[in-house]
Every structure is written in structure tokens, then in C-alpha cells.
């Protein structure tokens, strides 16, 4: 290996592109076959080579980001696909495809190589039924532990009765927490609790006030989003669902993830005018979503910050009004269409632009007020500085993305690194912070609001000057979309919480055969124990608030 090559990493050409042949050479005879996915090439390997292959790709070729694990059942086999990327350059992707036997679907676990595989494999086991050997804790994650069958497998009978128990949770560290001898106390936080931001249950073990063990128990809002999308037709029936994944008004950001994936699957080009509209709408959503994160976080760390929460909601109302004018709804926009958006800006256009400009003009003053009230406040600083620390190496292990990753100094933003929409034509910056703590995570969000405002104002200028006869809002897309059978694609966008991706496999019909959602909150939440264990209980709540999860997206 020449010096230059080692700097580039194995498998990268001089122009910085991926060289899959070189990667294949690196893996040697472990590669049984190669597959073409639209976003990347895939290497088919044996189920007992998973750890070897993944760690070679991670250590030698620099694929340090296990973005997603897709599990699915075919007529003749089960399949796990590990979608890998690089934090340095997310356009460099590779899929590792692991087919397993139909009778005995056992595959080696990737957990020793990537911590994040833990939850992803549990989900694959839960919903599809593949078993992972060597997995530290292979139990159901989304469905109740007494569930019968695997709902996304082919022969699942949805009409079968199910029984769900309501019983006490056991202390995982000591057999009986009521025992006089025991030092620890078991504490349930949630599933109905104001600080969990929804229906999340944290099984927490305390020693005094210190958290010794915390295990997030999710699935209280698992409403079958993937099944719903698999039952819907590409053209119109799927788009309403993404609005409901991350439902804190991040709707357009989510819709974009589906739009991007389906457009890449069906090879649809989006007119520029529509891209600007999308960019504008999406950034408004980001502001609304970040404001909610800030408001609720302030409330979580210190009850008297109620007023900030009220302020955040006051400002969100303004954003929601603007979005309602554009889309017709306050939260569930359903505004994107494959190939564009559903309609143009409401008339009179000037009035709407004026509304946005007013909001943008007032924003700096409002942000200054927030900073006065929150980040400059001593109590707040004591609660947030150096608590909930997440080191960048640890964050990468868990596939953490979004503001949570950027606050750990990971310079990763798909809007810039894997450009889509109109972002690469505009002037804005990716915000990072080396603090790695709760304070940094909140600061990153504050600054991202400013950056989003910058993007929005440029979009408004562009739209204002756009010649009237070039305002194409939608490309020509056939009424029914039937992508070629067995096309596979995985695309992601930068949503409010991080990398929101979708994997689709088509089967020649007008509905996807497999629709898999990569939720940023799912991966981010998995890193919570790293931030909270050893800290005080109050800091656990702060850490949870600072990663800003939304359960609709965690559970899907």
C-alpha cells in the first residue's frame, strides 16, 4: 500500500470515488457474489462471516457508520442488509447482504463490531424473525415480550389473538429490589411521565441518587409504520405517513426522505422551483422542531423555565401559521409529491413573503432573549455543562447523527455532505461544537435555528425573483408507478433529529415489497445509557431531553 493510498483508505480511487473491486479484493473469498443497489453495491456474504467482514470494512476501509440494518423475508430465504457509510463522506456507501436459510434463520451478530447493531438486530428479530448468534441480549424490542409470531414475516396471521401482560418490572441487577440487603433501588420512569417526551419507559436502577443502570424500554407507540407504507401505493398513499414519524412539526423533513428515496427509485427529476419550495418548507420545519426541543428541554432541567417553554410555543405558532398558509395543515402537511410539491405559494405571494420576513426579522431578538433566559442562566449552566457527556468515538459506535452528533464534534450533515434539494446552491454553515455535553447539544440547536433562518431568507429572495413562466411545481410523473422488480435503494436526508433514511425494495407492483425506515431517534436513544450511567438521576432526565427524541419515530 502506498502512502497516498493509506491516507485515502482502501477502496478509494484517486478522484475520491469508491472502488468496489478493490473492496472485494480486500474481503477476498468472503464475498460470495455482488449485488447492485441503486445507492451502492452490495457484497453477499455467509451468515457466519458477518463480524469478520464488517470489522474489515470498518478498520481497513473506513466504513465507520453502520447506518441501518434491514431485515426481510423472501420466498426462499431471509436476508439482513447492513447499510454502511463513512462519517467523513456519506456518499461512500456499501451494503453487506447476508442471506440466511429459511428453515433456520441464524446469522452472526454484528454487535461486537458496532454497538448500534444491538437494537437494530433486536428489531430485526422482533419483526422479521431472524436470529442473531452471539447477540448479548436478543429479546423483543418493539412488541410486548409475549407476542406470538413475527409480523413482517410472510406467513404472519394478523387476526391471531395476542395476550399482553401488565406486571412489575424486575430489577436487572439484583433479584429482589425490596430486599433489605440490596443497595439499589429500581425506578420506572414512564411510560406515562412528563419528562420522557412521550410514551417511553426507562428501567432505571439507582444507587442513592446515582444511576447505575438504565435500559430504555420502547415500543409503546409502535404503530406499524413500515407495514402501513408497504400497504400503500408509491404515488399518493405513502406520503401522508412520514408526517407522523417525527410529529413535532418536522413533517416536511420526513416527507423529503420518502420523496428522495422514491424519486431515486423511479428516476424522477424534480424541477428547481419545487426544490427551492421544498428547501424553504423543510427549514421552517426544522425551526419549529428545534424550538420545541429547546422549550421542553428548558422545562426538563428546571421547572421554573416554564416561561421559556411558553415562549417557544408562542414562536412555533408563528411558524405553524406560515406553514399552514403554504400547505393547508398545521402539522400533517402532506405537501410533497413525487417529482415536486402539491401546489405553489398562496396568493398574494407578497403577503406570504412578508409574513416570513417579519418572522425572520424578529428572530434574532427572540434568540437573544432565549440566550438571556436560558444559556446565560447560572442554574441552567450548572445543570448542563459537563453532564450527559458523549464522546465522538462512542457516538459513532452508536450511529448517532444530527445535532446530537454535531455537538460531539462530528462534522456530519447530509445537507452538505450528500447534497439534495437546493442546499448546495445556498450559503450556510454546518454547526458543530466540541463540548460533547448537554449544553453543547442545546447550543448546536440554537445556532442551527440561525442557519435555517439564513437558508429561508435566501429562498424567499429566490422565489420572489423567479420568472412567472418558469414556476414548475411538479415534474411529469405517471399516475401509477411500477418500478422494475427487485430494485433496491437506500437514501437518507438530514431531518431535524439526524439522518432519516428509507430503504425500499420493489417487486414490480405499485407498492413496495419492503419499506424500512432508518430513524435517527432510534439510534440516538440507544446511546442514552452511555450518557447517563454513573451520573445523577436528574442528569439522566437532562441527557434524555438534550438528545431530543420523539417516540413516533423511535417506535415507528
Amino acid at each position, binding site marked *: 500500500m502506498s502512502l497516498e493510498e493509506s491516507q485515502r483508505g482502501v477502496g478509494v480511487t484517486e478522484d475520491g470515488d469508491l472502488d468496489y473491486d478493490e473492496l472485494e479484493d480486500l474481503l477476498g473469498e468472503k464475498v460470495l457474489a455482488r449485488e447492485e443497489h441503486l445507492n451502492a453495491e452490495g457484497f453477499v456474504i455467509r451468515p457466519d462471516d458477518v463480524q469478520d467482514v464488517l470489522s474489515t470494512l470498518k478498520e481497513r476501509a473506513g466504513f465507520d457508520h453502520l447506518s441501518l440494518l434491514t431485515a426481510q423475508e423472501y420466498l426462499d430465504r431471509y436476508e439482513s442488509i447492513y447499510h454502511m457509510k463513512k462519517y467523513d463522506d456519506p456518499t461512500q456507501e456499501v451494503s453487506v447482504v447476508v442471506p440466511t436459510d429459511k428453515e433456520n434463520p441464524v446469522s452472526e451478530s454484528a454487535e461486537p463490531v458496532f454497538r448500534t447493531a444491538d437494537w437494530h438486530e433486536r428489531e430485526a428479530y422482533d419483526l422479521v424473525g431472524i436470529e442473531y448468534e452471539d447477540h448479548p441480549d436478543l429479546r423483543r424490542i418493539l412488541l410486548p415480550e409475549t407476542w406470538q409470531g413475527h409480523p413482517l414475516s410472510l406467513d404472519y396471521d394478523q387476526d391471531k389473538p395476542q395476550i*399482553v401482560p401488565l406486571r412489575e418490572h424486575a430489577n436487572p441487577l439484583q433479584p429482589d429490589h425490596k430486599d433489605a440487603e440490596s443497595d439499589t433501588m429500581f425506578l420506572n420512569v414512564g411510560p406515562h411521565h412528563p419528562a420522557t417526551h412521550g410514551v417511553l419507559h426507562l428501567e432505571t436502577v439507582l444507587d442513592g441518587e446515582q444511576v447505575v443502570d438504565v435500559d430504555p424500554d420502547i415500543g409503546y407507540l409502535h404503530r406499524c409504520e413500515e407495514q402501513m407504507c408497504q400497504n400503500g401505493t408509491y404515488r399518493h398513499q405513502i406520503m401522508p405517513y412520514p408526517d407522523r414519524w417525527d410529529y413535532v412539526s418536522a413533517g416536511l423533513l420526513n416527507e423529503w426522505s420518502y420523496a428522495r428515496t422514491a424519486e431515486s427509485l423511479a428516476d424522477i427529476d424534480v424541477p428547481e422551483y419545487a426544490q427551492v419550495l421544498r428547501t424553504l418548507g423543510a427549514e421552517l420545519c426544522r425551526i419549529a422542531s428545534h424550538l420545541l426541543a429547546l422549550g421542553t428541554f428548558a422545562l426538563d432541567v428546571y421547572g421554573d423555565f416554564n416561561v421559556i417553554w411558553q415562549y417557544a410555543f408562542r414562536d412555533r405558532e408563528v411558524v405553524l401559521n406560515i406553514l399552514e398558509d403554504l400547505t393547508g395543515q398545521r402539522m400533517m402537511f402532506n405537501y410533497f409529491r413525487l417529482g415536486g410539491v402539491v401546489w405553489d405559494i398562496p396568493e398574494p405571494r407578497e403577503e406570504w413573503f412578508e409574513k416570513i420576513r417579519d418572522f425572520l426579522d424578529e428572530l434574532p431578538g427572540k434568540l437573544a432573549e432565549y440566550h438571556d433566559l436560558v444559556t446565560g442562566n447560572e442554574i441552567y449552566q450548572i445543570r448542563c455543562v459537563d453532564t450527559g457527556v458523549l464522546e465522538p468515538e462512542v457516538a459513532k459506535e452508536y450511529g448517532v447523527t444530527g445535532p446530537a452528533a454535531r455537538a460531539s464534534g462530528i462534522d456530519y450533515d447530509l445537507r452538505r455532505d450528500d447534497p439534495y434539494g437546493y442546499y448546495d446552491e445556498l450559503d450556510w454553515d454546518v454547526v458543530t461544537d466540541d463540548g460533547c455535553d448537554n449544553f453543547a447539544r442545546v447550543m448546536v440547536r440554537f445556532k442551527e435555528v440561525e442557519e435555517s433562518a439564513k437558508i429561508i431568507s435566501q429562498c424567499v429572495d429566490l422565489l420572489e425573483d423567479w420568472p412567472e413562466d418558469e414556476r414548475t411545481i411538479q415534474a411529469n410523473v405517471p399516475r401509477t408507478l411500477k418500478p422494475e422488480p427487485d430494485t433496491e435503494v437506500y437514501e437518507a436526508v438530514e431531518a431535524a433529529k439526524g439522518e432519516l433514511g428509507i430503504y425500499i425494495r420493489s417487486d414490480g407492483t405499485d407498492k413496495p415489497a419492503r419499506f424500512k425506515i432508518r430513524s435517527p431517534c432510534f439510534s440516538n436513544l440507544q446511546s442514552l445509557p452511555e450518557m447517563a450511567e454513573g451520573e445523577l438521576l436528574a442528569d439522566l432526565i437532562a441527557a434524555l431531553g438534550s438528545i431530543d427524541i420523539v417516540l413516533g419515530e423511535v417506535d415507528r
Partner: protein
Amino acid sequence: MSSDNQHVTTAQTKTREARMGEGVDDRFNSRLREVLGSMPFILTKFDKFMNWVRGSSMFVLQFGIACCSIEMIHTYAVKHDLDRFGSGIPRASPRQADLIIVPGTIVSKFAPRMKRVYDQMPEPKFVVGMGNCTAAGGPFQEGYNVVKGAEEVIPVDIHVPGCPPRPEALIYGVVKLQERVANGESSPVVVKPYELEEFSDLPRDEVVEKLADQIDEDDLVMRYNWRNSP
């Protein structure tokens, strides 16, 4: 203060003294008392009075499930401010709440917990179902894991349709409930197919046999007969 007001105050003071005796602090003199004049008693039916009290001040349980809860928060927050109608103070404990707004999709794992929370509320208690999910499962009605509406588990007094309903719609629903409570009207209690029951009370069938070694006899369980769901 104008002399006119002064005059009124003097007259009021007189009626108050007649009612409560001399030297009572001005602060005890409420508007309502002025209306009642020197009469120290009012005559009404006890139940009517209680209903009026109940309907005029309701404590809502702080309870969020899914997307609808975001609009519910907007309903509590500035601009819409549900508290204007006397029902905007969310209580964190079910034991202090009169009203539960159910804002979101209910799935199999959550329904038993929701039922437990509902059971912990003291009587009389009222339920507002917010959104299509609580009405019938909403957009997720066909999901393998989704309970087809809150009414499968607890009785619901008012349904507010929408996905999500606007804050104005929720306010309308809550105020409507308050009005009905004040008038002493209530909804008929509907049959709830899904109950919490002891495992040993379930009819022995295939699923029960299968789970017998995982669930204790006296564990509480909820059994979902998906086939018979609406």
C-alpha cells in the same frame, strides 16, 4: 375613585354588614355576593350545584401519547390557552385529575398501561378522545399492533375528530364536555371489549396454553381478539 363608586361601595358595605357582621375585610366581598345581596343563603339542588362546580373547573391529566399531544400542548400554551375555560391546568398525577384527554394512537403494549392510569383517577372522571386514532385507530387502523380506538379500553365521553384536530376543535370538545357535565348529562357507558383480567381467568385456548410458562396465573393481562375488532 369617583364619588359614584364611593356611593356604591357604601351601599355594598351596608348589605355586607347585614350579612356577615361588622368589620369584615373588604377582600371577602366577592362579586357573586353582591349579586346575592344581603341574602346569606341560596337555594338550589345539591346535585345541580355539584355539577356546576364540576363543570366549571376541571383538572386535566397531563397525558401525551402521539402526534395529537403536540396540538394538545398548543392548546394549553399561549394563544389558545385552554385555561381560559377553567380546564387548563394539567395535573401530573391521575389521582388529582377529573379529565383525561387521550391524544394519540393506542397500541397493544400501551393499552394496559392506559387502562391502569384511567383506573387510578378518582370518580367522577371524564374522557375526551382526541383525534382519529382514538376514535377508531385512524391512519393506522389496519396495523397489526394498533388498538382500534380508545373505546376498546375505556369509555369516552366526547370524540374530537381530526388528524390532528386543531386546538380550536379540542377547546370546543372540552368546553362541550364541561357544559354537559354542568347540565348533569353524561354519555352512556359503552361496552369495552378489552379488560385487564387475571391470566387464569382467560378461557384456555391455544395462545393461553403457549404462554402458560411465561405468564403467572395471577398476572394481569389484556387479551386482544383482533379478528373481532371493528
